[in-house]
């Protein structure tokens, strides 16, 4: 299950970065205005074992969606390497990349914007089969589409309807069917439940877990919701301003978060049962996420970190191991400081 058991990981990302460059207009350029650079993802390394769910958590603008899309080469990486099942994906030519896409798919956040309103559900879901020539006849295509439509919990007659005839939760099921119809091995789930109501969200979470088990899938599950990640994922990576600040097995990271950002993220989540085991003190971060156009020097979290010292403003902290499969990037790791003061904790239930 995990990458620790010696098996080669299904997906391996090494030093991946993505920088967007925006050129100013002609006049401004002549006047000497330089290009604007946004490093959306900087030097990210992670591995996902076959059959594993890696949760990627972070706030809006931290680069988690960009990371997911860069792994699939929906955006071209600036530097770094992505290896999928032994193949260097970043080195593939367009034809080989297209073939690889059959095995690597994505489910999008917005079930309203990610489906073509002018196509029937059958056309939308059948498109990957056509692109990859996976069906030998129209009849086979229709059979395979119908099969996956029923597998994701929709009625077979859905194939003749249009996206607007479905609710948000049903549309997300259509998006899932489209991603799965080509029998991929790896799926980037980009906030697939964030736009849904609570009761519908639970249906989709359960569906994704059932499908993963039955079809032997591997997920990179991107979310800003720590509860969903805590429930679903095997391992978790925490992202802040383009960098992974902490990574490890979910139980370890959520019970013993070592990076001050992970700690504050966890304490900020409003909980229905405030006596939950990972609810300790309350950390109140001040300030907003800094602009990625002009990221802070040193540790990027220092502008909001209550534990920041001089070194944090100057030197970028290296990623260090803090336990089995658990690593974090913080100058003060060895001091074992916690913002979640256990003294404030309510008595254990």
């Amino acid at each position, binding site marked *: 299950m995990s990458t620790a058991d010696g098996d080669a990981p299904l997906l391996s990302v090494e030093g991946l970065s993505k920088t967007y460059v925006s050129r100013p207009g002609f006049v401004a350029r002549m006047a000497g205005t330089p290009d604007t650079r946004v490093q959306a993802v900087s030097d990210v390394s992670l591995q996902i074992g076959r059959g594993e769910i890696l949760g990627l958590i972070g706030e809006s603008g931290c680069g988690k969606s960009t990371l997911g899309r860069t792994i699939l080469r929906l955006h071209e990486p600036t530097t770094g390497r992505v290896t999928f099942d032994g193949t260097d994906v970043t080195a593939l030519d367009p034809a080989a990349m297209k073939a690889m896409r059959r095995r690597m798919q994505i489910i999008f956040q917005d079930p309203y914007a990610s489906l073509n309103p002018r196509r029937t559900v059958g056309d939308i879901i059948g498109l990957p089969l056509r692109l990859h020539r996976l069906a030998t006849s129209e009849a086979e295509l229709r059979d395979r589409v119908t099969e996956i439509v029923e597998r994701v919990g929709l009625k077979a007659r859905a194939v003749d309807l249009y996206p607007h005839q479905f609710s948000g939760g049903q549309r997300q099921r259509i998006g899932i069917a489209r991603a799965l119809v080509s029998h991929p091995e790896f799926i980037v789930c980009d906030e697939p439940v964030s736009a849904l109501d609570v009761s519908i969200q*639970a249906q989709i979470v*359960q569906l994704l877990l059932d499908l993963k088990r039955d079809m032997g899938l591997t997920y990179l599950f991107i979310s800003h919701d720590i*509860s969903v990640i805590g429930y679903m994922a095997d391992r978790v990576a925490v992202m802040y301003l383009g960098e992974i600040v902490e990574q490890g097995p979910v139980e370890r990271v959520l019970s013993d978060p070592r990076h001050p950002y992970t700690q504050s*993220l966890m304490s900020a*989540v409003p909980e*229905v049962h405030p006596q939950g085991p990972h609810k300790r003190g309350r950390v109140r971060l001040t300030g907003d996420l800094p602009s990625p156009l002009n990221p802070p020097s040193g540790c990027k979290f220092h502008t909001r970190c209550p534990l920041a010292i001089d070194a944090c403003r100057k030197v970028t902290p290296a990623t260090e191991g803090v336990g089995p499969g658990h690593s974090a990037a913080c100058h003060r790791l060895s001091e074992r400081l916690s913002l979640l003061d256990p003294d404030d904790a309510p008595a254990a239930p």
Partner: protein
Amino acid sequence: MTDTAASQPLLSVSGLRTVFETRAGSVFAVDGVDVNVRRGECLGVVGESGSGKSVTFSSVMGLIKPPGRIAAGEIIFDGRDLRALSPAEMRMVRGGEIAMTLQDALTALNPALTVGAQIAEMIEAHDPGLPRSEPARRRAIRTRAVEMLGLVGIPSPDERLRQYPHEFSGGMRQRIMIAIALASRPRLLIADEPTTALDVTIQAQVLELITELRTELGMSVVLITHDLGVVAEHCDRVMVMYAGQVVEEGPTAEVIADPRHPYTKGLLGSIPRIELRGQKIQPIEGQVPELIDLPPQCRFYSRCALAGADCLKPIEMRRVGPDRQARCIRTRKEVGA
């Protein structure tokens, strides 16, 4: 309850029905809703999209426009019948004694006016105590505007008054909207999904701000949200809405510890938590019914595991505790009404 004014609820809505006429038929977005907001309390209103939570409070604010209309019901605010007020009188209440903040701060704020101008407008419209002479009046308004921005925790408010909404981050815009709402010193703040568009660390800041200001200014707050966690941490009482009706109401801690309506129970059970790893969560199957031509029966019938033949009739709210009500005939331990 005694008859003294202080023990009366600040806002009391009874039998509210808000209808939208559509080509397909009449949509009863709010159908027989009662709400009581007590003085100084924070009432959480929870429900999924289409449950009628925003329409209920838009009705209170007099913001329902055709093809929508209030078909029935009484809205009493501090002893006054809001539905009987003239448009001019209602305008003084709205944004004055009752203020509302909306979910999406970017669309709610005017992009063409500075933040300072938008706060000033509110102070000018609702503060009768402003000085008469123009320069003094302007100075007073400016001082109040700076004070309001400072109150909601915006750094260097003096300079930021001159900026436009797009120059602020999402969390800051939400704070500005709260500042505008509070500029008239309202007695009731209706916050409609104030933090849904925000990140958790910013959400925590905004919710704590609302809670602090409530204590400081002694106002009542209605917090409309779909997040039971937000309610659990910030609201004294909670009202759960489903398909245009209130299905359960009571003190937050009691409702969460022992939900009496199967929908509330289902909502609580739908929340994934790390402690539930490896166990199946129990989603509520199916979806919210269309609100057109609803049969006269329990609205949760089609999704309810407890449903039986006796649920196929209109179900009334019933008392299930000293301060609790639920709209379910299967609920345990009924207390005499």
